[in-house]
């Protein structure tokens, strides 16, 4: 039997329309099914949530099982788990521990622990994430094992989960992981340890001497950022460590702790052979507000490394009027780099603007001092700010005087 072209065309159109109609029907039915499920979940959540909240907010020892209609259907279990995980983020202390206890009592923690052995990496990652939010101590050992997972994402989520669960048994493997930079991002590990706060401090202090140098650097970074005074002795020792990176990080951490008792050690570190240590020490001294360090900081303005000069200048600026005077005196230093750094700092601190404003002062002594200062800056060839002020300053008298000096003094004369 043969078909005409017209019949073939009609048949093709009919089949196409039929297929499209079926696809449309499938999409509509699927959407309706999803919406019905979502509506059902919303209703179930509305029914279960008050009971879970009542449990979470209570101070009594009754189990979550006494609050819920047992046995839970698989759908209700998933909804109760979602509610517990949602509310876990709001709570801490004993209230938070009740969430962990509920997850254990309902078998949710055990299910997530099983999930750490799933074949798909994203299922293992999801399980690790959940266990961290649940905060169940039952999960510590399986999560420690997951730190050796072949997937980066699973390892990192297991680490984050351990950081959330806290306790020394959770933190210890994270501190040890600092020693293995090939498998871990030191920055992300450090963030996790910082989040663990005091629990991390104990473990870091205890493990510190056994760590390799690069891990000691990360450990000092964490201790500094947690700002724990308990690290003070370790920092004093570490600023004399044979490794320059360790010394630099110790100096930086001292600045974060801002304990005035570190001033002597930091002033000594300003003479360190490694420029990174000198730079970090200068920055830290600025944070400490150590006035006694002004003469040594002024010396560092002539350091051969730009970072040291810049941080010494920042520190002098942070040290108030005495530091500012030291910066002004540095304009007469023998070293060109020191003079230029001083101008940059005086400009950033608004001190150049203050002198410029004094050019029209009614006080003759201030006018004279301002003229001498401005001439000195022009002689150093740093005229950008002055030229700007000569055009933009709000006082006509200042603009006129500044233009006059700019024309009279040869730029870059010194």
């Amino acid at each position, binding site marked *: 039997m043969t078909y005409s072209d017209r019949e073939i065309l009609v048949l093709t159109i009919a089949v196409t329309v039929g297929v499209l109609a079926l696809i449309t029907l499938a999409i509509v039915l699927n959407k309706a099914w999803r919406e019905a499920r979502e509506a059902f979940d919303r209703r179930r959540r509305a029914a279960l*949530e*008050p009971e879970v909240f009542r449990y*979470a*907010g209570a101070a009594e020892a009754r189990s979550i099982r006494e609050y819920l209609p047992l046995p839970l259907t698989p759908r209700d279990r998933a909804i109760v788990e979602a509610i517990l995980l949602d509310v876990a983020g709001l709570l801490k*202390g004993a*209230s938070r521990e009740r969430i962990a206890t509920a997850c254990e009592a309902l078998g949710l923690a055990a299910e997530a622990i099983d999930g750490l052995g799933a074949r798909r990496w994203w299922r293992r990652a999801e399980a690790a994430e959940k266990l961290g939010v649940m905060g169940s101590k039952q999960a510590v050992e399986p999560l420690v094992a997951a730190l050796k997972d072949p997937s980066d994402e699973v390892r990192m989520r297991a680490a984050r989960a351990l950081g959330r669960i806290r306790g020394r048994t959770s933190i210890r493997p994270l501190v040890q992981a600092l020693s293995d930079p090939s498998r871990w991002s030191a920055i992300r590990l450090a963030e996790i340890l910082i989040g663990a706060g005091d629990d991390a401090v104990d473990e870091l202090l205890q493990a510190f001497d056994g760590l390799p140098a690069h891990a000691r650097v990360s450990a000092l970074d964490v201790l500094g950022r947690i700002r724990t005074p308990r690290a003070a002795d370790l920092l004093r020792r570490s600023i004399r460590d044979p490794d320059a990176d360790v010394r630099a990080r110790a100096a930086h951490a001292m600045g974060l702790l801002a304990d005035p008792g570190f001033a002597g050690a930091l002033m000594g570190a300003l003479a360190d052979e490694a420029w990174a240590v000198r730079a970090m020490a200068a920055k830290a001294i600025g944070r400490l507000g150590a006035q006694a360090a002004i003469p040594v900081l002024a010396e560092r303005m002539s350091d051969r490394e730009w970072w040291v000069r810049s941080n010494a200048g920042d520190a002098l600026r942070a040290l108030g009027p005495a530091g500012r005077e030291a910066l002004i005196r540095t304009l007469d230093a023998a070293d060109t780099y020191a003079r230029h750094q001083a101008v940059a700092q005086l400009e950033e601190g608004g001190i150049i603007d203050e002198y410029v404003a004094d050019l029209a002062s009614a006080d003759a002594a201030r006018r004279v001092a301002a003229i001498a200062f401005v001439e000195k800056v022009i002689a150093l060839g740093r005229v950008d700010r002055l030229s700007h002020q000569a055009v933009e300053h709000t006082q006509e008298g200042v603009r006129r005087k500044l233009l006059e000096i700019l024309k009279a003094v040869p730029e870059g004369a010194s």
Partner: protein
Amino acid sequence: MKAARVLLAESDPVARRFVAGLLRQQGHEVDEAADGEAALRAARERRPHLIVLETVLPGRDGGEVLEALKADAATRRIPVLVLSVRSREEDVVRGLEIGAEDYVTKPFHTQELLLRVRKILARTT
């Protein structure tokens, strides 16, 4: 302790329902607001005995809401307990400076929050 009328300004629905539930369990009548404007409106209309305020709110930020409450003669005397995810020292200091009666950071202990609510209400009602 007397039951009080409490206005809870919180944009996160889970947090709002949870804290509202906690307060209701204590016998308080709770009005809920999900943004800054609604919180201000409810404060003026309902004159609650206490406002529990999250500083991170859509539209008008919680800090602005607190300032507006303290600037308005009709709401100035209503004590405000800030319950916020903003936990930096400067955030707490600013909140107390603007006029918050107390400042609790999230995550929080439920019993501590309820105790602070109780103390404020005992002092002010």
